[in-house]
């Protein structure tokens, strides 16, 4: 982009040595757009050896704050070399401007923040992460206390936001979660089909699809989708409220932000996520069933008959039992990251991203822990 000069700035600004020794002449429009060229001219001035310098500025046709600043800076630089500098001939309005700049301008240059070194960065990051881990723990504790208070006095539970959150996080997520688990069922059946056919174990496609969906995949997929859909929304909502000081306003009104913003979300997700999981179980198995008929020649009737044997009640309940745990993780991480927002719009974006990454990470981690524990318990 090329800067267009303002009308009065068309005359080129310059600073040159004058006719007599110890004289400098300024001319033209000393304005922002001429600043780069002008600074080069200033730097190119031959070092004056005279004790007394006279600067003739009568040919200056225009001046703005940037031009005046450069003039003041030049004057100061010359004075610093031990010369007595006198400015003459400047138009009165420009002179007033130079006086204003002189009064406001400090001798030192702009204050720059020091860039931290490698070791400092690592240290700071590690400390931040530690604080963040403790913070999450403290947040879980606070949330539990708020929940205990609410249970002790059920009138404090806010039903309306709970129902609203069940609708947005649960009901409105039905199409996407259903579609994805249906496709997942199809993929598993399709991949398993060739292997099973080789052994003539066609009927075991039911075990493959139903068990993997019901026990592992459908709670996991549902939690991940909800983390992306709702956990991020929680972080962004609470974060924006933090930026606009709405959270502080809630505190002053005497409404605990945890009670109003976090508890309803946690409770709503704890109800919605198991329900969604039941639904995605059905959709996933349905996907496998649709695929099993053309690929392996298993009729719907046979499939459903085998289903009862393939999936034990304990497997089914384990799958659904994980859902409330995932729900707590997703809701708490989303809300916690929202509360971590500080000041800027960028911070809201960063915290939202972190909330999704962190909750998906924790969901998968906890799922792995579940597998280990159930293995010990031989479930």
């Amino acid at each position, binding site marked *: 982009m090329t800067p267009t000069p303002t009308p009065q700035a068309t005359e080129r600004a310059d600073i040159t040595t004058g006719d007599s020794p110890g004289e400098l002449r300024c001319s033209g429009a000393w304005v922002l757009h001429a600043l780069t060229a002008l600074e080069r001219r200033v730097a190119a001035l031959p070092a004056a050896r005279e004790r007394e310098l006279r600067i003739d500025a009568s040919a200056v046709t225009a001046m703005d704050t*940037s031009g005046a600043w450069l003039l003041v800076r030049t004057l100061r630089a010359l004075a610093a070399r031990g010369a007595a500098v006198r400015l003459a001939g400047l138009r009165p309005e420009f002179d007033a401007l130079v006086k204003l*700049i002189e009064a406001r301008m400090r001798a030192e240059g*702009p204050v720059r923040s020091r860039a931290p070194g490698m070791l400092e960065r690592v240290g700071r990051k590690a400390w931040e992460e530690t604080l963040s881990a403790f913070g999450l723990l403290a947040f879980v504790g606070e949330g539990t206390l708020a929940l205990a208070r609410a249970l002790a006095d059920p009138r404090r539970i806010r039903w309306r936001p709970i129902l609203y959150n069940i609708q947005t996080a649960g009901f409105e997520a039905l199409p996407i979660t259903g579609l994805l688990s249906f496709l997942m069922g199809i993929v598993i059946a399709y991949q398993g089909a060739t292997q099973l056919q080789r052994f003539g174990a066609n009927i075991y496609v039911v075990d493959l699809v139903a068990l993997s969906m019901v026990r592992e995949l459908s709670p996991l997929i549902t939690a991940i989708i909800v983390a992306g859909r709702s956990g991020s929304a929680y972080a962004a909502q609470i974060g924006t409220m933090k930026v606009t000081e709405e959270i502080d306003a809630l505190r002053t009104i005497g409404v605990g932000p945890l009670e109003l913003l976090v508890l309803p979300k946690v409770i709503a997700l704890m109800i919605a996520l198991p329900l969604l999981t039941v639904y995605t179980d059905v959709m996933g198995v349905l996907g496998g069933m649709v695929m099993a008929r053309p690929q392996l020649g298993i009729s719907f009737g046979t499939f459903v008959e085998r289903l009862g044997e393939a999936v034990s009640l304990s497997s089914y309940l384990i799958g659904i039992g994980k859902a409330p745990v995932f729900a707590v993780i997703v809701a708490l991480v989303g809300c916690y990251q929202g509360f971590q927002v500080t000041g800027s719009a960028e911070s809201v974006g960063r915290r939202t991203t972190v909330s999704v990454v962190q909750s998906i990470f924790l969901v998968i981690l906890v799922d792995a822990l579940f597998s280990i524990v159930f293995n010990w318990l031989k479930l």
Partner: protein
Amino acid sequence: MSEAVIEIERLNTRFGDAVVHRDVGFSVARGEIFALVGASGCGKSTLLRETIVLQRPQSGSIRVFGQEVVGMDDEAALALRRRWGVMFERGALFSALTVSENVTMVLEEHTDLGPALRAEVAALKIALTGLPPDAGPKYPSELSGGMRKRAALARAMALDPELLFLDEPTAGLDPLSATGIDELVRNLRDALGLTIMMVTHDLDLLWRTADRVAVLGDGRILGIGTMNELSKSDDALIREYFYGPRGRAAREQAWNRR
């Protein structure tokens, strides 16, 4: 009167059924401090937004530096936008950037200055608005309300504009900071010959700085003139505006200073 920088003629604005401006017109001369006043919701800020090409009126003409801005596209407006600076009511500083980055960003976009020179010019602008030098590396969220206003002014001044729009420059400031802004506005006009158009509720600011004031109400200009002229007006709404208890106090103060 000298050359007009802003000329508004027969301006009409409606939001649905609500008429905001009905045949509004006035002009602002070069070097003038012009203030728009009026009750909340009378369309002052809308008028300001229409003048700086953020919003489009239903009909009428707004000429800035002699160019018609109604219906102007962003590309055409760019050249004009370089010649004016805008300070928004809530500052509208970019929260992800420090104060000095907020200023250098404008310079980077519109001038050929190198990084070192940009930083120095930004430091100058920050100093000009009366902020301490250590405010430069701070983020807007670390500043107080008054400092944020000053930082916003520093950004508006980044390109040394000929015309400055100020939306509620003193709203939300303590009296001392507000007085600082008064003086700053006057100083800038006197030293730089700026034209300033501002929207304000601050009667002190009006008495101290404004050369001419337009009172907006009922969708029209109720009165236009110096504060002295307006305070002698017979219009009931204008009298109410200037002779409420607060108006009287500000007026007495203004007299005492003379």
